[in-house]
């Protein structure tokens, strides 16, 4: 159910700026919509996205209901060393997804 996709180059030169695209499958329910019976649909969003490179945090985003469903976050980082890049999405109702990717730096 909880799924996420991450795209980044598998290898890079040392010091190169690489582009990372992430996409999480999530409805991002705003908490402002109502059902046909007029009941408010409770908020259910991803609140935070964190990217860590070999354990060091490099990029963090706080999300609000104004982010569209299936949030896309595209950003850059510097390829410093070979290792793993981890991505974590945390949200309402205990939502938590972690994705990792490995990168080879020459």
């Amino acid at each position, binding site marked *: 159910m909880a799924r996420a996709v991450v795209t980044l180059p598998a290898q890079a030169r040392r010091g190169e700026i*690489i582009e990372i695209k992430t996409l999480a499958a999530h409805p991002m329910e705003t908490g402002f919509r109502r059902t046909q019976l007029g009941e408010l649909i409770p908020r259910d969003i991803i609140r935070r996205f964190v990217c860590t490179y070999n354990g060091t945090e490099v990029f963090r985003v*706080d999300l609000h209901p*104004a*982010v569209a469903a299936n949030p896309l976050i595209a*950003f850059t980082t510097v390829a410093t060393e070979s290792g793993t890049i981890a991505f974590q999405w945390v949200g309402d109702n205990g939502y938590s997804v972690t994705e990792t990717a490995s990168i080879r730096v020459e």
Partner: protein
Amino acid sequence: MTTRREFLVLAAASFAAPTAAKAQLDPNQQALRRTAMQEALRRVVGDAPVRRGRVKLELPPLIDNGNSVPLSVAVESPMTAADHVKAIHVFTEKNPLPDVVSVTLGPRAGRAGLSTRVRLADTQTVLAVAQLSDGSFWSDSADVVVTLSACLEEGLI
């Protein structure tokens, strides 16, 4: 039996209804939300001056569907340990909540920027503010026209 006159009145009414649903936010709401954005901005920058420039906010000027609008922010910065962008915030003027995204980053990001997709409730101004490592704030804004609101089903709350 429906007379010709009754039919014409009904037909006219059914054409009129959708135009009413497209109405803009009422002025009171607009003022409240503008105040909310100013407060959200003050929470981030405090009393520091916000200058224009260095930030580039890109949004399509005309948006058919406010439910998913591509937005990208880029900040001019060498992104070194001594001179980098610490945070980027995006605010809207007329959404139910002023905050959109808040980004925390540092020299490890390489370039200061992000691309995402947002919801926009109305024709409005979107504001991006960047905080630099020397404590200064820079901003850029974009005016967008939204034809289908992201919150249309409950009549522009």
